[in-house]
């Protein structure tokens, strides 16, 4: 009976699908929480400060050496932050447009979570492909979903009904338009090389032929910079710009609604890091040790490799934030429209020509 159930493809699909969703969601949220901690610690170290080093649950300090060490690294800070966000007063100003004000945070988080669904975070584990949804149009899906994220920010800016969020919202839409295009076009040349829109297939291509970042360095640079702009990270955090817009689109938000924006930002960052690993750094593959693993150990190893690469990229995101000053609004537009879009177009044409020449 049980055997029958397991071998039934529908049951299998539903069971494993649910399991994968739960695990990935859990891991992602942990990553988000700890990305915040890493960001705080790293920024503190870069700015000659100390960073969070006080939080510890009651009994932990009793552990001889480790307890103090963990406290010093701020390992428990994310938990304290989480509790704090839940306990804060959720304040809704009187002058906001309630409905939009309420749905905006959700609209920001959901796309970030949805993009993760198509990313192959490992090869195979016990015969199951390690991707939640193995879509044939993976890349198109990602771009479609990612662009939805901007609606959350624009809605938040507009519905807040006050000037700073409004400016933040406007900036965000302008920024998104300029960088979405460049980002999409940089990926076109990647797709030209691999000849497939399925992200899993793209990774397999790289496992066989080497990482795409070596074939398409220009596309990678454009994608990287656009990713910074898409995730509203410095040097392109114009919608937020604490120093001029008091926090931009989320100025009026508090408590869990604010936390959702915050989580959205970090989830976005992790999603685009994962995307970059998949598209340019060979996903779960290491150079010279390619092919999907048949064993459990190999499968786990592949997941580990993917996560390691992703963490490195997230660290790059974080480090850059404390390294570069914010771009001015017009510089941002200029960079997007007058530099990157032509460059990306040229890249596509050159790639196509080279590929055609190689074929004939």
């Amino acid at each position: 009976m049980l055997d029958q159930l397991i071998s039934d493809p529908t049951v299998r699909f539903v069971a494993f699908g649910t399991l994968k969703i739960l695990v990935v969601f859990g891991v992602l949220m942990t990553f988000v929480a700890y990305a915040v901690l890493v960001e705080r610690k790293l920024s503190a170290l870069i700015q000659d400060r100390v960073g969070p080093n006080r939080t510890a649950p009651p009994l932990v300090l009793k552990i001889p050496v480790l307890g103090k060490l963990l406290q010093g690294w701020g390992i428990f800070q994310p938990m304290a932050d989480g509790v704090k966000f839940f306990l804060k007063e959720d304040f809704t100003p009187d002058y906001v447009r309630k409905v939009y004000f309420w749905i905006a945070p959700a609209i920001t988080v959901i796309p970030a979570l949805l993009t993760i669904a198509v990313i192959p975070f490992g090869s195979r584990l016990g015969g199951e492909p390690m991707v939640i949804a193995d879509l044939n149009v993976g890349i198109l899906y990602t771009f479609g979903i990612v662009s939805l994220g901007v609606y959350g920010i624009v809605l938040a800016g507009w519905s807040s009904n006050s000037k700073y969020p409004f400016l933040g919202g406007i900036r965000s839409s302008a920024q998104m338009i300029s960088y979405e295009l460049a980002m999409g076009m940089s990926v076109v040349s990647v797709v030209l090389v691999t000849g497939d829109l399925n992200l899993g297939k793209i990774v397999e291509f790289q496992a066989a032929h080497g990482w795409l970042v070596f074939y398409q360095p220009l596309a990678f640079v454009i994608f990287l910079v656009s990713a910074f702009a898409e995730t509203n990270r410095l040097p392109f955090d114009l919608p937020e710009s604490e120093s001029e817009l008091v926090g931009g689109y989320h100025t009026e938000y508090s408590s869990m609604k604010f936390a959702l924006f915050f989580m959205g930002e970090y989830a976005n960052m992790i999603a685009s890091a994962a995307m970059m690993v998949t598209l340019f750094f060979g996903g779960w593959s290491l150079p010279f040790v390619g092919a999907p693993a048949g064993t459990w150990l190999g499968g786990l190893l592949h997941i580990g490799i993917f996560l390691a690469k992703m963490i490195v990229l997230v660290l790059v995101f974080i480090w850059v934030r404390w390294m570069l000053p914010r771009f001015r609004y017009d510089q941002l537009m200029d960079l997007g429209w007058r530099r990157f879009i032509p460059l990306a177009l040229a890249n596509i044409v050159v790639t196509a020509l080279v590929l055609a020449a190689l074929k004939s």
Partner: protein
Amino acid sequence: MTKVVDRKPLTFYERTYLPTLLEGLKVTARHFMRSVKGGNAALQLGDGYYPEVPWQVAEGYRGAPYLVRDQDGNTKCVSCQLCEFVCPPKAIRITPPGADGVPADRPNAEKMPREFEINMLRCIFCGLCQEVCPEEAIFLQKHYSLTGLTREEMIYDKERLLQLGGVHAGIQKWKHKLEEAREQDTFPVKTD
């Protein structure tokens, strides 16, 4: 006379934004390495962090303003109310003794304040009271951690201000003011 500063156009290399990136990376990496090796200021100056190890304030620091006594333990303030007048956020409130109030507790002074209150919640630690006082009776001292549970608690009265302020070197009306004026260019400005 205006001086025109030449702005050289950026070279191509500079316009690629690469030198800025490298420079930024260098600076942040340097600070990062220094911090990792335990080089932050708190650890260098003391052997711990703030609440356990109090912070050492530098010379010339402007902390909370307190009233001081002279060498004989008398109130130096003569209730002239100049500080009350000059205080930008109106943190000081002085109740003068009035026509038949208590006389000053020191010779050569006509009066002293009946009550002298500084609201530390309003005070912005600007130092104008110290600067304007003709009697050297009020000084910004090095206290920086003022806490209280109620707003009333944060209004320091005369007793408290005098007690916290301590004793100051004698009555030297104008002497230090003159020195200070002469030493405008050198820092830190002498306070005693």
